[in-house]
Structures are given as C-alpha cells and as structure tokens.
C-alpha cells in the first residue's frame, strides 16, 4: 500500500484516502474489541470479523481496485482465513487429545464478566474473527481482481 499512498490517479480523492488511513486502524481496533468481548457483550467472532475486514476493505475502496489486486494480498487473506479456522479446529480437538470430549470446554472457566473467562469461548471467538476477516477480505480481493480482468 506504501507504493500507492501518493498515487492520486486511482481510487478516491485525497481526502477519502487520508481519512481512510486515519480510520482504518481505529476500525480494526473496534473489530478486535467486539471479537474479544464476544463472551461478555453482544457481538463475537462473526460480527467482529466483519468489522476487521471492513477496515481493510475501506482502504481498498479508497485506494481503488488496483491497490487491492495483488496475489500476495490474496494469499495473506487466504492464509488468515485458513489459520483462523484451523485454530478453531485445534481448540475443538484439544478435548479429544486430552481424553475428554470433542469440543469440550477444556480451559478454566474463570470469573464471569471478566475478559479472561468462559474457557474456550473467547479463543474460538478470536479464531472465528480471524477467519471471517480473512474470508471477507479474500472475497473482496477476488471480486476486485475479476472486475479488473473484465475491464482489461
């Protein structure tokens, strides 16, 4: 994205780009907040993941389709997605590995209403969040690539 920072020819105007740069981090922070507090407040991995993806998609929108179209970026998104759900999978089989049930809530439950509580739930939320974010960004990039392809 560095290369495209000063490139005003594609994407939206300078103002949108600058605001997107300022806001992207904050949006992501908010997404992470939703994910991390999934077991305490409404929200969770799916909702938070969408918001996290939103931060990237905002940047891509501001900087235009060409900024988004990159094999490497798609790969990172795909990687996030795979690793996210793979993390969920790992958490799920921990129960099997340690001789209890599949998807058993194997971690300590902690005190309710605290951030570190509810055993595997926040961990799963994080995994799902990563997956959803990766998934949406990946889809967005894929579609952007298709659109560019059509334009060519």
């Amino acid at each position: 994205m560095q290369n495209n920072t000063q490139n005003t020819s594609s994407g939206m105007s300078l103002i949108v780009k600058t605001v997107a740069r300022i806001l992207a981090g904050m949006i992501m922070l908010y997404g992470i907040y939703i994910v991390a507090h999934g077991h305490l407040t409404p929200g969770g991995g799916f909702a938070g993941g969408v918001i996290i993806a939103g931060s990237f998609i905002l940047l891509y929108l501001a900087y235009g389709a060409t900024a988004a179209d990159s094999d490497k970026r798609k790969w990172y998104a795909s990687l996030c997605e795979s690793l996210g759900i793979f993390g969920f999978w790992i958490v799920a089989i921990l129960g099997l590995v340690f001789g209890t049930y599949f998807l058993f809530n194997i971690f300590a439950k902690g005190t309710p209403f605290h951030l570190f509580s509810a055993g595997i739930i926040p961990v799963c939320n994080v995994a799902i969040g990563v997956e959803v974010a990766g998934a949406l960004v990946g889809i967005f990039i894929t579609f952007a690539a298709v659109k560019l392809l059509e334009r060519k």
Partner: protein
Amino acid sequence: MVNSIPLFVVIPLGCAFILPVIGRRWERAGDLFANLVTVTLLGLAIWSVRFIRETTVYHVGGWGAVNGIPIGIYLVRDGLSIFMLVVVNLIAFVATLYSINYMEYFTDKTKYYTLFMLMLAGMNGVILTGDFFNLYVFIEIAAIASYALVAFGTEAEELEAAFKYQVMGSVGSGFILLGIILLYSYTGTLNMADVGRVILDKGASNLVWFVNVLFIVGFGLKAAVVPFHMWLPDAHPSAPAPISAMLSGVLIESIGVYPLTRIMYNVIGFDGVLSNILIVLAIISMMIGGLLALWQWDYKRLLAYSSISQVGYILLGIGLGTPLGLLGALFHLFNHSAFKGLLFLDSGSIVYSVGTRDLREMGELDRRMPITSKTNLVAAMSIAGVPPFNGFWSKLIIIIACIQAGRYGVAGWAILGSILTFAYILKAERYAFYGKAGRDVADVKESPPFMCIALIILAVICVVAGLMLLPNVRETILFPVVNTLTSGTEYIWRVLR
C-alpha cells in the same frame, strides 16, 4: 472406542483447513494428504463395521442430557450410519486416488482437494449427526462445496450449471430449514431422538405432515427425485470426473436419501401414505430418468440421468418399507455408489484421453483403452443388472420385495425401468467402445496408472459385492443395517438411553 466417532468429521476438516496453507508452495501436498485422509477414513469406517450391531452416542462437548432432555449435540453411530460411512469413504478414497492423475489438467489442485475434503466432511457429518440443525449445517457444507466443485473447470457452461444447481439447491435447503424450524417450534428441541419422542407423545398432527412434505421436497431436491431433479443433469456432468463420481455416487444419497430415510423411519415414523408418496415419486424418477438418459448423446449427461433413475430404485425399496425392500434399497445404494462412481470415472478417463463427451465422436475405444473399456463394461453390466455383477442382486431383491409387498404394478414398473436401463447403458457401451469411431482415435492412449488403479478397485468391488448377500455374511453386515430402519422409532430410546 467411542472417540472414533467425531474423527470422521474432524480429520477431513483439519486436512481442508491446513491444505491451503501448506499447499501453496508444495504442489503435491494435496495428493498426499487427501489420499492419506481418505485411506484413514476408509480404514476407520471398515473398522467400525464391527460395531454395526450397537448404537453408540457421542456427546459433543460433553453436554449430555439434563432431566432427560438432550441439550448438546449428539452424534449417533448405529448400523445405518456405519454402512453409509463405508459407502461414502470408499468412493471418496477411490475418487482421491483417481484425482492424482486426473486433476493434473486442471489448475489449482490444492483448492480442489480442500473443497473435496470439505464435501467429504459435510457428508460424514450428515451421516453421523443426531441433531436437526447440525444436519442442516453439514448438508450446507457438502452442498456449497459441491456447488464450487461443479464449476471447478470455470468454463461458461459449467458456471451456468453450478448456478442452476446453487439456486435449486438453495430452494431445497430452504424447505429443509423451514421444516426444521416448524419442528423446533412444535417440539422445542432439535435433537432428532428427542423430537421423535415429543412427536410420539403429541401424536402425528397436521404440522408433522406438513413437515413431512417439506422434507420430501427438500431432501428430494438434494436426492434429485423427479420432479425436483432438474439441476442434476446440468451439474453432475459439468464437474470434474472424480467429483461427478462423488456427486452421483454418494452425495445425492448421503445428503438426500439418507436423511430422508432416517427422519421418516426413525424420527417421525413411517406409514402407508408416506410409503405411497415415495413409491410414486420413485416410479416417476425411474421412468423419466431412464427415458431422458435414452435421449442423450453426451455420455456424462446420460450417466447423470441414469442416476435419477437409479435413485428411483433406491427410493422404491425404501418406500416399500418391508425388510426385504429396505435390504434391496440399501444394497442398491451401495451398488449404485460403486457402479455409478466407476462409470463416471470411466467417462473421465475417456474425456482425459479422447477429449470429448459426445458419444458420437467416440468409438473403437475397446482396443485403445483396454482397462477403461473393461471396467466400464463391468459397471455397465452392473447397472443393467446382469448377473453376477452387484446391480443384479439389488434389482432382484427390490423386485421380489415389490411382489412380496403385494404391489404387482410397481414391480412391473421396476421391470420396465430395468429394461430402460439396459437400453440406455448399452447405447453408451455401443457408441463409446464398440461402435465405429466418429473421429481419429489412433493416438488415444490408456489413462495414467493411478486412474487405472482406481478404476480396477471399483470394478473388483462391482464384481464381488454380490458376495455380501451370501448367508452368514448378510447376517453380519446387511441385516443389522436393515434392522436399524425396521425397528423404527426404537431409535429414540437407543439414543436417549
């Protein structure tokens, strides 16, 4: 070993999740891992056969029953599930083996294997689950993976086929979901056995009948029963050959026929009206599928229509509801997986070597591709029901079951369907292998080794599967499976025990 139950879902899921990561640099990872997974699962499934007499319940997450009401998700492994697992994983194993060479001429093999594993996990999940919503979720996994796999070649017509498949599949899923919602609002629970118990208590009301209709339509759509079959002839031929084999061989059975059977027999309870509906649908499927297959010149399309017809046979046996009918249906299900899988794999070999699906452009392949032609012959004879190949035995049992149940007219239709089967499959044989070549076939060669091995494995199964009906063998393998269904709502107490 109760812990082996979730492995059927966990292993392919894990493989699917990790493959995109490691498959980027390592092209062969998909070949290796997918085959390992399917071999393991096949081994597990066959190993499970010794549990075939008992019902094992697995409580996911350790959430058992509270006050006798199940609150978590149950996985249920009984005779029928194990039987289906063996079928599914067998075909999956052969298909992955076949894919090693066949998928060489598609790009991005890793994604292919990922989707394949997801579809497999979906099917295994559907088979093992004892929970309505979970059933729906896994049906969706399998279905979505199959949508993508149908369009894997990314040609225009494949995309169109996948689109149709997706739209109609979504309609079907919608009906299924509506049915599940209604059942939930009626019973307040999602566990199949618990739903069954509540229905037993409350009695089969209009609502349950409405849900029955919704399920027949929804699962009938997934199983491609006429008149809900229109997506199949587009979708199945468009997929790569191993996927066609999976779709026609096991997918329509494991996410269409199996849940329908399970719910009708074990949860809601089977009766005469359902039986009549299923039999009529089955006869229509048999005849229309066969007639349309007769009309086709595209080999894979012909096979796809024949799947509709064969599903009709399976449904006929299930609709009869007698033990003999169920035995025939289940055995035919197994056989159909084997021979239809084999036929589609053979068609894939032809496509791979000759480059066409049009029967008129093939010909004289019996000399050019000996293994393909011989295995195809075995499969064709199986589907036509020529002894001693497996299709004959299941056809025999189903027809005898029709007579035994006193439905002579139905038996007559089954015979007619059978003659139709002879007609269309021999048409394919005649044009593809024995007739005069429609184009220059001088440079056509036999397919690569892994493909041939896969073909031979299935051909051997087609030849020897009839042995499952031998006395002593059938008592150990097939009868307990039939008992699972004939014991009807006993299922509830076995699960809730």
